[in-house]
């Protein structure tokens, strides 16, 4: 990188604004993070339901195809023909036995191996590829693929440790809590185009300090009546986190019926309090769990509203946030309805998340002339460690800790 980023050595309490602005930082991120040693979310296993299923995905700038082969194994490879570089797959998803590039019909197996080249032997003895052309030496770059609790991740790097090790045991356990042994069902997909650098959203999702200050829906409608406890988990590497809150056990017991749907409307100011009707799905009273995995994966549980969010950089000041709303195959009709109602809380029109769509843009515009200055991250001290309060920026500092390690800054 040409830019000299003024970043105090060894401290995580300042973030140079230039990191949200510089083209050469963005280019370096593509090489060191998105094509580097991190696991990147690709899709859900359930989105590749059968042998021959394929789906396109995005890892930073790199277009990717994810497939399930005839034997059921998952593969991912760059969506780039080994011949002239054209996209191989032009659909979002589908079923195929093999994948052909439209440009010159070079054809690939579901694992991305080149299996045929059109006119390889020429026409009537003329033209064609040289005898020595080695089919096995030409293929789009393959990603290593791992599936954890039905979430499919990929990386170009040979050396990335298993994803459980990268996330650490506590974050791993909190993904298992939501997804292990369940069969997720996609309820809808939306893309929110954010007018800011991708890292501003990565920070926002890890920022437990802003939640009750920026998002006023719950307090305005007096929904948080019950004593809340909560905390923050930061992974050892720093870049993955869990922010959670729960109603106290005794309150939970009296509030949640042993089964069925809760609609405890006594003190709500909502005309339709059924918006928040739900059930203690995981049996632990935790009503909010926001979980991130470095760099761009988010798993959200807000009451019974479940979603996966993927952060995709689209230039220094543009980001796509891909939302996949989830339920489970064994939801009762009543539970499914509760999830759909609660989904009003999240997404681009969400009562508790619409502000997150614009606040990154407020920073991007606010710092336009302040590239040599830095933001302050001192709430909760200087460390990037697990803590039992959410009045802290520990997991934002954690993001920068892992970011700096991966970027070599």
């Amino acid at each position: 990188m040409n830019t000299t980023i003024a970043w105090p050595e060894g401290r995580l309490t300042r973030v140079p604004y230039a990191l949200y602005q510089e083209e050469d930082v963005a280019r370096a991120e593509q090489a060191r993070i998105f094509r580097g040693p991190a696991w990147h979310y690709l899709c859900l296993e359930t989105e590749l339901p059968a042998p021959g299923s394929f789906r396109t995905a995005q890892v930073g700038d790199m277009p990717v195809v994810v497939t399930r082969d005839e034997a059921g194994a998952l593969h991912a490879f760059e969506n780039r023909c080994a011949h002239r570089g054209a996209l191989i797959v032009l659909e979002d998803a589908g079923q195929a036995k093999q994948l052909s590039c439209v440009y010159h019909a070079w054809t690939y197996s579901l694992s991305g191996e080149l299996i045929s080249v059109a006119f390889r032997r020429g026409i009537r003895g003329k033209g064609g590829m040289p005898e020595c052309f080695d089919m096995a030496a030409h293929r789009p770059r393959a990603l290593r693929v791992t599936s954890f609790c039905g979430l499919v991740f990929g990386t170009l790097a040979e050396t990335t440790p298993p994803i459980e090790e990268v996330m650490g045991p506590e974050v791993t356990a909190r993904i298992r809590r939501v997804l292990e042994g369940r069969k997720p069902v996609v309820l809808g997909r939306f893309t929110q185009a954010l007018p800011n650098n991708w890292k501003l959203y990565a920070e926002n999702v890890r920022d437990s300090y802003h939640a009750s200050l920026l998002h006023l829906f719950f307090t305005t409608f007096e929904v948080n009546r019950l004593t809340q406890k909560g905390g923050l988990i930061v992974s050892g590497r720093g870049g993955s986190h869990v922010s959670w809150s729960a109603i106290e056990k005794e309150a939970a017991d009296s509030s949640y019926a042993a089964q069925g749907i809760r609609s405890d409307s006594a003190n709500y100011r909502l005309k339709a309090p059924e918006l928040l009707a739900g059930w203690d799905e995981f049996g632990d009273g935790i009503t909010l769990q926001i979980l991130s995995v470095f760099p761009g994966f988010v798993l959200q549980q807000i009451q019974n509203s479940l979603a996966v969010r993927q952060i995709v950089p689209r230039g220094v000041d543009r980001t796509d946030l891909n939302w996949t709303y989830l339920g489970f195959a064994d939801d009762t009709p009543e539970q499914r309805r509760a999830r759909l109602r609660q989904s009003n809380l999240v997404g681009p029109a969400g009562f508790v998340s619409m502000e997150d769509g614009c606040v990154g843009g407020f920073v991007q515009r606010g710092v336009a002339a302040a590239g040599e200055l830095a933001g302050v991250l001192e709430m909760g001290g200087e460390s990037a460690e697990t803590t039992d309060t959410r009045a802290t920026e520990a997991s934002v500092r954690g993001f920068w800790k892992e970011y700096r390690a991966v970027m070599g800054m």
Partner: protein
Amino acid sequence: MIGPSRSAAEARDAILEAQARYALCLDDGRLEEWPGFFHAACSYRITTAENHRAGLEAGVVWADSRAMLEDRVSALREANIYERHAYRHLTGLPVVTEDAEGWRAETPFLVARIMRDGATDLFATGRYLDLWRPDSEGRLRLAERVVLCDSRRVDTLLAIPL
């Protein structure tokens, strides 16, 4: 049964009129009047053509009662924080058919968004899939409105309804 009988032409006129009022209501910022275009028992959903084709149920907005629409207006007024902006809806001509439930209408729309600083962009295109039924006084109200956006992409946020 759909109440006092209307000819197809009368129904189409009434729907055109109601849709024109609906658009002006939102574009003028009279959000409090917006739930009044719906029956108390109603369905309102904003989703994408892609989700609709795939039979996926979720919406960026998903309401199954007028009370939920009223809560959304209260939230926009009292709780949610966003930069001041306005819409300009242009609705095309509806294709109206009658079935056992009432009058079905499919209407294309364009919505421009005008931000505080004057930036004006095409915010959404799509179509309304509606079910209109008369109330006890014969006025047509929406029993169902599915707002199908042509694109899966929503720029920044969707605060004011479509």
